[in-house]
């Protein structure tokens, strides 16, 4: 009752602001600092979630002004970055998108800036180019790392032991290190306890690095130190693929949590005791929501992830702020690009409904993750989601993993990437 009242008052107040908007624009770095005209949605993060939220809100309601704030002028996809590491892709160009067509096709205003804070009470986003006012905010900033949980980790560590868990320079660095490693060398891949971005991702990476070693450095091996008790996703299929193609190359060790590192000696310590040395160390730290989500107080009691009303993805912490993608707690939906895409559409639909005082629309979502085992064979996991008692759950009887490694999915996966990146950029 109170909420509706406040919304109503806000609408009235906003109406008065419309005429002032034109007069005041241009005063600040973004020209978006003073008033909103009552119909402005700001989206933080131009990745898998943010681009789709921005585009779909505009597709559904042209009367809503959408401002997308992203620190970079382009985005590099994590999906398929493992194929670059494996040597299947020559560079990252097929994984890179720009934002210009979101502006020309849909009228999304793109502001390249670092978001430094969110004033939820004042409905203002602080950025490196000045403040931006909003009526509703959608936050899709991805992940941050809990590096404080690894002894010896400092600001320079990623330059020596790359995570490559955000695609771009880190991916290029890891690939360079693999290329520079002499034959007979050891790659160490450290996987944190879940939940982390892309449950099957580390195991696809293991497969792709093993494929590279088998082809180019056959005397080398990869030691996988997995903090989890077993492979987190598609375990049977990965194990089958590894036994079939990478016997003697992959040394998979479950329940091995890396707690300490020494970048000088190029070693990692498992539970502070067992030392493992690597020529290349791909250290994926434990994860949480991106820094900005933590700083803005959007994370829950665990101080890691953002609790939301799963019907609309509105934050449980701040009103008129929605959190989607990896940063959010989305019930059964995993932290994947496809989930972020699907959540963005659910969120966009209901942001539009809320801004127009319409009833919220029931939820329906999908996730799919393809993983390559070799250049020619892939596997997938898929699921369809619905809302039950306020929680996102898988629809009974749907989804599951591929029956076996297969060539068809290695072909379809490429088209998936093409379609999802085209969705995000046109």
């Amino acid at each position: 009752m109170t909420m509706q009242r406040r919304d109503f008052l806000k609408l009235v107040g906003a109406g008065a602001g419309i005429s002032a908007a034109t007069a005041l624009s241009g005063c600040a770095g973004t020209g978006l600092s003073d008033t909103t005209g009552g119909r402005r949605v700001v989206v933080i993060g131009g990745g898998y979630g943010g681009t789709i939220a921005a585009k779909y809100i505009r597709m559904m309601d042209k009367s809503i002004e959408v401002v997308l704030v992203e620190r970079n002028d382009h985005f590099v996809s994590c999906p398929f970055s493992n194929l670059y590491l494996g040597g299947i892709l020559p560079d990252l160009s097929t994984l890179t998108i720009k934002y210009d067509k979101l502006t020309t096709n849909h009228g999304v205003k793109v502001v390249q800036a670092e978001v430094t804070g969110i004033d939820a009470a004042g409905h203002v986003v602080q950025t490196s180019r000045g403040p931006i006012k909003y009526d509703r905010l959608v936050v899709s900033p991805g992940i941050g790392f809990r590096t404080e949980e690894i002894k010896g980790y400092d600001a320079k560590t990623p330059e020596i032991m790359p995570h490559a868990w955000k695609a771009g320079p880190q991916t290029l660095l890891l690939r360079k290190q693999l290329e520079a490693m002499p034959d007979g060398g050891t790659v160490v891949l450290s996987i944190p306890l879940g939940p982390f971005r892309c449950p099957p991702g580390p195991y696809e990476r293991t497969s792709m690095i093993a494929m590279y070693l088998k082809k180019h450095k056959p005397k080398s091996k990869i030691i996988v130190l997995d903090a989890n008790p077993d492979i987190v996703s598609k375990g049977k299929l990965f194990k089958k693929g590894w036994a079939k193609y990478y016997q003697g190359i992959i040394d998979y060790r479950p329940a091995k949590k890396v707690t300490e590192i020494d970048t000088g000696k190029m070693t990692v310590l498992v539970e502070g005791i067992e030392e493992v040395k690597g020529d290349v160390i791909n250290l994926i730290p434990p994860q949480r929501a991106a820094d900005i989500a933590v700083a803005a107080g959007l994370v829950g009691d665990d101080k890691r992830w953002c609790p939301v009303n799963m019907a609309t993805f509105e934050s449980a912490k701040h009103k008129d702020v929605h959190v989607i993608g990896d940063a959010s707690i989305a019930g059964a939906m995993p932290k994947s690009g496809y989930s972020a895409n699907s959540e963005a559409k659910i969120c966009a639909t209901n942001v539009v409904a809320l801004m127009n005082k319409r009833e919220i629309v029931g939820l329906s979502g999908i996730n799919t993750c393809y993983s390559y085992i070799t250049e020619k064979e892939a596997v997938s996991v898929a699921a369809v989601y619905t809302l039950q008692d306020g929680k996102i759950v898988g629809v009974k009887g749907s989804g599951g993993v591929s029956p076996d490694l297969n060539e068809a999915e290695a072909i379809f996966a490429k088209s998936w990437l093409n379609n999802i990146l085209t969705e995000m950029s046109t």
Partner: protein
Amino acid sequence: MKQRWSRWALTAGALTISATAFAAGPSAEMLSNACAGCHGTHGGSAGLTMPSLASQSKTAIVEAMKKFKSGERPSSIMGRIAKGYSDEQIDMMGDFFSKQKFHATSQAVDAAKAKKGADLQEANCSRCHLDDGKDGKDDTPVMASQWLPYLQMQMQLYQSGARKMPDKMAEKVKPLSKEDLDALLHFYASVK
């Protein structure tokens, strides 16, 4: 008296809120948008193998989904996905995609093959695949502008027996050579 009124107001408030919390089921758009991560925005695929659904015949989509769901039609992934929807929801999605704008594609096709295909389709396929494959009548899918590698994969599934061809279509397809069939698919892919 005053208290009674405010209590009544509270109850009314609670009712309004729960009405929002338990909103109606997903709309056709909500259901269909989730498919677009693979099939493209509004079902217009950027290729090369994921099929477009935009402006596809409604019955063709509904029939395909039901066959994926039952396992009658082979699939790499659609079987697992189709099982997540009721018949009513499948109907809503079929309706949504059938109403989207036709997605013309510019694909690399072999011009000579496409020309040969254009001649062959007249006598062999046009009775069902109407108007150069642009019109999908009932359960006959639209094939114009569909991605060539997708059509080729489907034709392989038909010929291996994994996907069951309609009897009347089989009568026409069986006598044709591999080259003729490939030419036909090049033709349909090239239609805009």
